């Protein structure tokens, strides 16, 4: 069960902050989330949204294990 985290506007859009989802690959996880919620699915692939696996930003697909923390990071703005 990968642990999925949403930040910022993605969380408001989805209506949840954190969920456990079983998925062998990031691509499969994205597909499942899009199937459930097409608007969220599109937003997760939107411009400037990054994905971190166990706090490391990745591009493209990647395998997930039962303990992987998957974070969707929309465009950032501090200070």
């Amino acid at each position, binding site marked *: 069960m990968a642990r999925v985290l949403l930040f*910022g506007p993605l969380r408001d859009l989805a209506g949840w902050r954190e969920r456990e989802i079983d998925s062998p690959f990031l691509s499969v996880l994205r597909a499942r989330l899009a199937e459930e919620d097409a608007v969220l699915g599109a937003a997760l692939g939107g411009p400037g949204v990054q994905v*971190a696996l166990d*706090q490391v930003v990745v591009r493209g697909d990647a395998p997930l294990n039962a303990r992987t923390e998957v974070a969707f*990071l*929309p*465009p*950032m*703005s*501090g*200070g």
Partner: protein
Amino acid sequence: MIRLTFEPFDPGALLTEFCRDRTEVGAVATFTGLARAEAGATTTLELEAYPGFTEAEIDKMIGRARVRFGLLDVLVLHRVGRIVPGEPIVFVATAAGHRRAAFEACDFLMDYLKSRAPFWKKEHGPDGERWIEPTAQDHADRERWT
């Protein structure tokens, strides 16, 4: 060093500490970002971080600033959670032998924090709430360093 805090903080107390026992640091530059009321349009800011990841990313940028500007020390404190107008959001202090390096490093770190650091910022006001993204100016400011 980078720290996140949910509690209000006093930038002056941080500066006092940062300047203590410095006999070879000629120059300390600081920046304090304060929450603005925007004449009543903003009642609260809500800042979210990704604990662990946020500190690690900022720490990488601090490392780059240290090398690029030859800094002797750096401190970044960033508020998270709910912030009301007048409260500090961010404090950056840089120490160097001479002033140009201290100023530029502080400026560089702020441009990074405003446009690239892992924070998400929501503004609450009488007209509702909205997520804030970096402005075109913020991106242009950051581009100065590339």
